[in-house]
């Protein structure tokens, strides 16, 4: 069975859980795969540590917890410090490059891709959509899920009236991810 373990980490209020939920939804509802989602919060949701564990597989998933993710998406320095050492060797790190500075604590063979998601979100008009930029970046770099399925998952997960900007944020992240990925391959 092919299984990919993903962890999304950041601060409460950055939309970490929504990012994980969209990935899981795209995989399970629109891409015909199986997915699980586990979410964890700090003592207070907004502004404290927050993470989501997503597993995507071709078959039913028996154990949903992620210990050593194949893919780590981080949106805050604390989440990077906490979760980066747990990345599986040869795994992939997707990080918010304006907020996080990489150090030498990454496991061996990890491929790191950065995106200035907050800046992109602000340029689009709302800082609030940085998680959707990160979701697009994830889709563009990893190619784990089809573009259409993640786009549909974004569209059906965000509040009515915000679809336009959220899809724009998704496309921005996706295109940037494709460029970064092509540059490193």
């Amino acid at each position, binding site marked *: 069975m092919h299984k990919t373990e993903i962890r999304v980490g950041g601060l409460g*209020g*950055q939309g970490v859980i929504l990012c994980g939920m969209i990935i899981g939804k795209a995989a399970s509802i629109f891409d015909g795969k199986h997915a699980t989602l586990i979410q964890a919060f700090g003592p207070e*949701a907004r502004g404290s540590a927050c993470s989501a564990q997503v597993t995507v597989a071709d078959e039913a998933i028996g154990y949903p917890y992620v210990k050593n993710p194949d893919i780590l998406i981080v949106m805050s320095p604390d989440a990077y410090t906490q979760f980066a050492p747990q990345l599986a060797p040869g795994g992939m790190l997707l990080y918010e490059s304006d907020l996080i500075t990489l150090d030498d604590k990454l496991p061996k063979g990890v491929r790191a891709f950065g995106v200035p998601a907050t800046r992109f979100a602000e340029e*689009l008009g709302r800082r*609030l959509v940085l998680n959707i930029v990160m979701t697009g970046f994830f889709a563009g770099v990893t190619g784990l899920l089809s573009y259409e399925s993640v786009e549909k998952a974004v569209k059906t997960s965000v*509040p009515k009236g915000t679809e*336009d900007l959220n899809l724009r944020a998704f496309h921005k992240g996706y295109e940037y991810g494709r460029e970064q990925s092509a540059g490193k391959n």
Partner: protein
Amino acid sequence: MKLEGFPQTVFLRDGTPVAVRPLAAADAKALLEFYRSLPEEDRLYLKDDVTDAGWLQRFVALVGSGEVVSLIAERAGKVVAEATLYRALRGWSMHVGEIRISVAPALRRDGLGTSIARELVKVATRLGVEKMVIEVVENQVGARRMFRKLGFRQEAVLRSHVKDINGTKRNLILASTDVSHIWDAMEALVADFSPSAE
């Protein structure tokens, strides 16, 4: 200020595509021609003398400063509609934007006004405008219908506030739409509160 996502193509009721994009300084002459081509009765309902070159100069400067957002619709190289968002960059009404729309007579009832207004509402929402207001004269039935479709609701009536071309006094209707709830919902969604904690 650069607006993302333009040019956009909108479609008239018969399927004809029309390009919509932000006004650029180079469009000033074409915009003036558009306004000068409007019938006098239409121009009477506009707040400014849009046929005046001095107004145009001030308008383009406001667009440059970001205080005004202007979208134009183009067909066959001509401006056929213009939508303006006026917003205060300071003061107690920074969350409010006023919308004004003008459409060439030949293209009215074709859905162009609604389409360009919808694009402008999207831009306004992205820019953080939480409440949008319009002013229409009570006998501008088409404009009132169009804005009602976009979610605007009557908020006030100023009695005999406008004199039309024949000197008849008309009521001015103030209508508004509050879009703050849209982004409140998104904010709640990304707040990452634990569902089990509720």
